[in-house]
């Protein structure tokens, strides 16, 4: 169950239930048990009935009527040079923390 269609299909998996939702919602919409139950049920049907590896089924659920949310992920056109420099500094810090943690594990 996932949201990043290109990444999962690039890797290749036996079966994939794809929800065209913002990353973080692989198992359904927030505070919507019906959406989550439908997502799981469809994943189970893919598990039962996929004929071969790399079977992708797209959930029929929509995140919202308006698809403009898709433009925003890592959208460079909205970032100023100052913001890019700030993000670089922030990510250098994140990388340092991750490296120390990885080496300590």
């Amino acid at each position, binding site marked *: *169950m*996932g949201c*990043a*269609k*290109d*990444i*999962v299909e*690039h*890797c*290749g*998996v*036996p079966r994939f239930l*794809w929800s065209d*939702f*913002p*990353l*973080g*919602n*692989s*198992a*359904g919409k*927030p*505070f919507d*048990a019906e959406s*989550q*139950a*439908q*997502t*799981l*049920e469809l*994943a*189970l049907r893919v*598990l*039962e009935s*996929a004929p071969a*590896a*790399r079977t992708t089924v797209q959930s*029929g*659920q929509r*995140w919202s009527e308006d*698809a403009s*949310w*898709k*433009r*925003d*992920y*890592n*959208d*460079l056109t909205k*970032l100023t040079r100052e913001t*890019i420099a700030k993000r*670089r500094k*922030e*990510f250098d810090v*994140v990388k340092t*923390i*991750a490296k120390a*943690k*990885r080496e300590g*594990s």
Partner: protein
Amino acid sequence: MSTTLPEAKAVAAAEDDVPILYMQRTRDYYLALGYGNPYRWAHFVEVPFTPLQTSLDRARVALITTAAPFRPEAGDQGPGAPYNAAAKFYKVYSDSTESAPDLRISHVGYDRKHTTAKDINTYFPLERMREAVAAGRIGSLTPRFHGAPTNRSHRETEADLAELLRRCREDGAVAAVLVPS
């Protein structure tokens, strides 16, 4: 989920209403930040496939997540928290499927603008899977669910996957649901 009735008029989608090209956007983003050597996602020639060997209502199913156990000492892991590398984990972990674990996703790149990670059920479907067992849809869950590290090293990830497979087999799973967050 809505179903389009035969007599209903088909609604055209917007031109840019297509799957997001996450790999391209991520490459472009980090190149713009000044990092070279773009990340190479795993990419295989062959993909294994095993048909389900038993009916699902008799199958024992495992759940694998990339979510991380909440650790109070690891900084802000709350809904909408900035990317938190201190909350990452680098070893496979397991916990009981009878429990109500507190798992967070502040350590991965989810969409912080359009979702908040306030509802664990959007990235960790244990509760929904328990309901599917209660309804007789799934035979049973394995006694443990498993946590998969989000390590950028392909070599480390392959070793982690071997460990995950070992644990799933140890628990008698015939299938596993993998949910990346």
